[in-house]
């Protein structure tokens, strides 16, 4: 089974695909309307696919651009956006013909790329004419520019650190000299959140704390080396030491600011296990969703569905999964278990529903058998010891200067 590479760019395209279904359904209604009004079907209807392609490509370009904006700004953009769309609609000849506006506003509407596109739909479907050459050319040039510009904009993230492919080395996974820098402070999702925290910035920071916005290194040049084929490796440390950071770097959920991580074999992440489950779907649907994201075939999931459910423990998979974080964890663990041949993944208990969740300890245990390597990550020391894992913190963390302490486990 292959791991699915998930490029960010497909989000806008997936969204267009969804809207396109609406479009297709709506076209049926249009056909009905044309029959009703006895509009003849012209041969130019053959050009409709061309118009649709131009339209979709342009939409994709703008959508990419917009989602880039949306991710870099505040959530308020969404509301601003509604207004812009509305104004744009009235600036486009959606509900009136272009011939009705004259003079300078007509020239304006030439600059608006949606106007020729919508006119092209009309002339092809209703008038039986080809879209004018200027419209076609102008439309295409704009479309191309929009797409290229937005593609570039979408990719102008700083890319640092390299991902190395997993290759068949002899020893365990290791991260050599990984560095990860974060920005201190909350991420502001909306202006409303920004204002109170802006005020708080003027207050003296809590004793010993760093001021928001300051960059700090969560990991600094620490060479972490797993023993050759360790049975288990525990990563321990106080809050904020960088345990999760190490695991996320290993799983390549994040890229290191500097340095690289290397993994031999496969790694299955149990970090933030609730991720990608959707509360509106039923448990059954979520099993299929998660499975397909992880690269299982539909038939595979269907075949193993009972095992997954059985492993999940609580027999409530057919209900809505929203409240049952516990179930999610179990199912995800099972799914991972089934498809990971040798190397177990990292289990972050905090991400999996906090310390109150009683299941993970049992959920993790089976993976240690059969000579599999296991990487357990726990906020408590005791369970790690109880599983026969000797934990020996290196460079014990002190206060706020805490670093990630790494312990190698006895086999």
């Amino acid at each position: 089974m292959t791991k699915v590479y998930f490029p960010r760019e497909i989000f806008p395209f997936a969204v267009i695909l969804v809207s396109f279904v609406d479009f297709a359904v709506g076209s049926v209604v249009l056909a009905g309307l044309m029959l009703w009004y006895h509009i003849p079907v012209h041969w130019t209807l053959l050009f409709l696919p061309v118009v649709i392609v131009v339209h979709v490509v342009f939409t994709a370009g703008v959508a990419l651009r917009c989602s880039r904006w949306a991710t870099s700004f505040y959530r308020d953009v969404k509301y601003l956006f509604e207004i812009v769309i509305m104004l744009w609609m009235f600036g486009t000849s959606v509900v009136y013909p272009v011939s009705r506006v004259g003079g300078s506003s007509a020239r304006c509407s030439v600059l608006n790329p949606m106007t020729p596109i919508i006119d092209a739909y009309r002339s092809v479907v209703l008038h039986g004419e080809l879209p004018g050459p200027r419209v076609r050319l102008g439309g295409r040039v704009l479309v191309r520019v929009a797409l290229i510009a937005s593609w570039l904009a979408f990719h102008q993230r700083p890319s640092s650190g390299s991902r190395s492919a997993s290759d068949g080395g002899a020893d365990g996974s290791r991260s050599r000299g990984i560095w990860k820098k974060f920005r201190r402070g909350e991420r502001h999702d909306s202006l409303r959140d920004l204002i109170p925290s802006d005020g708080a910035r003027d207050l003296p920071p809590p004793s010993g704390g760093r001021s928001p916005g300051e960059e700090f290194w969560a990991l600094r040049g620490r060479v972490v080396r797993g023993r050759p084929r360790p049975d288990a490796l525990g990563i321990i440390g106080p809050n904020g030491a960088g345990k999760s950071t190490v695991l996320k770097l290993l799983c390549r959920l994040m890229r290191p600011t500097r340095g690289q991580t290397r993994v031999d074999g496969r790694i299955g992440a149990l970090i933030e296990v609730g991720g990608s489950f959707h509360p509106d779907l039923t448990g059954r649907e979520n099993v299929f969703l998660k499975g397909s994201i992880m690269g299982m075939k539909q038939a595979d999931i269907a075949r193993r569905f009972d095992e997954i459910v059985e492993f999940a423990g609580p027999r409530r998979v057919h209900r809505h999964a929203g409240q049952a974080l516990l179930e999610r964890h179990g199912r995800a663990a099972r799914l991972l278990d089934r498809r990971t041949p040798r190397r177990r993944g990292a289990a972050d208990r905090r991400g999996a529903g906090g310390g109150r969740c009683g299941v993970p300890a049992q959920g993790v245990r089976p993976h240690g058998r059969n000579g599999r390597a296991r990487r357990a990550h726990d906020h408590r020391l005791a369970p790690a010891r109880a599983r026969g894992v000797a934990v020996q913190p290196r460079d014990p963390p002190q206060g706020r200067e805490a670093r990630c302490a790494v312990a190698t486990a006895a086999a």
Partner: protein
Amino acid sequence: MARRDLLLRYKQTLMGFGWSILMPVTNMIVFSIIFTRVVPLHTGMPYPIFAYTGLLPWNLFASSLRFSVASAHRQPRRS
């Protein structure tokens, strides 16, 4: 993922896919009333079909943008 979105969009609505038809149709009716009764507009063809051919592609465009902005927020970002 597109299938998930599609499923979710209509899962908890009563009419399901009916809504995707109703949206442009309602718009068409509203604009038809405005531009045939209140401000008559000559388009050289029945107004409803004129409005509908405009609204249909526009809806594709507008809803794509709307959802892409929403999806950028909804998909968890890691890094």
